[in-house]
């Protein structure tokens, strides 16, 4: 049974996301960022010293929230599909491509001090100059690179 609509509109999700960032700051005085949550979760999984354990809970919470959506939509269900990219690239090639893209994101986000959530939503909301500069950069690079891929694939991607 599908309880949630296929895609909840931006004018509902956006303001609620903003309120979540505000609430987390207002109550806990903590920045909502996924990259450091990944880093601390890795430390925990590798049984190393975790500096900020609340970030592991943030990671677990993110997974739980997404899982709830999946359940409300009748899932989760195992799939090998990957949108348009999955229809154009064979799985054997797609796996190293996605691993490499993930590696670039992880390396870049850690280097930059945040990702789309840490810089793009949280840092921009705090009007942090570093986050504004980082968000403008990754947006510009991602849009340019997507257009580049679109052109070199003859418009297929």
């Amino acid at each position, binding site marked *: 049974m599908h309880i949630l609509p296929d895609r909840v509109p931006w004018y509902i999700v956006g303001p609620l996301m903003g309120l979540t960032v505000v609430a987390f700051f207002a109550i806990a005085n903590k920045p909502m960022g996924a990259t450091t949550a990944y880093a601390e979760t890795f430390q925990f999984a590798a049984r190393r010293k975790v500096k900020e354990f609340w970030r592991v809970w943030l*990671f677990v919470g993110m997974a739980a*929230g997404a899982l709830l959506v999946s359940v409300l939509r009748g899932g989760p269900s195992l799939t090998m599909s*990957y949108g348009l990219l999955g229809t154009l690239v064979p799985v054997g090639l797609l796996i190293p491509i996605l691993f490499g893209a993930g590696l*670039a*994101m992880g390396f870049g986000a850690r280097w930059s001090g945040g990702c789309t959530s840490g810089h793009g939503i949280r840092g921009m909301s705090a009007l942090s*100059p570093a986050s*504004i500069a980082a968000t403008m950069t990754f947006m510009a690079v991602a849009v340019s690179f997507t257009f580049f891929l679109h052109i070199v694939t003859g418009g297929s991607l």
Partner: protein
Amino acid sequence: MNRISFLAGAAFGFLVAAARLNDYNVIHDMLLLREPDVFLMMASAIGVAAPTLAYMNRKHWRTLDGELNLRRQPVSRKNITGAAVFGAGWAVAGSCPVPALAMTVGGSVLGLFVMAGLFTGIVLRDAVEARSIQPLLRRFRASSETEAAGVQG
């Protein structure tokens, strides 16, 4: 604190998945400027949060962990270079850290490889950072010891 973090994370993860940001095609269409929804979602999130946080900051809002600290940082070169590398990966994967997690818990096997890459990239960057600051730390320690020896002498 752990319970609050879990709830905040759950709300964020729920919203990311509810908006289908864990769908490659949604992010790809956004980055090809074919549909404005994700940009509008980000803008409305910031539009709600930025003035509220600015007001709370001006009023010296008290949290459970002291006075509100928005952690505003000045721009440094690493913010730009790192973001450029991140942007290239984002364009290829059509996913970023929270959507990749949402994708994986929703049953996407290929999302696991994005997450594996993310963990590897983060660990790799930490290793580079640790190596690059070690010589500086050694130099600092050496100069402090020399100074201390000078004072004692």
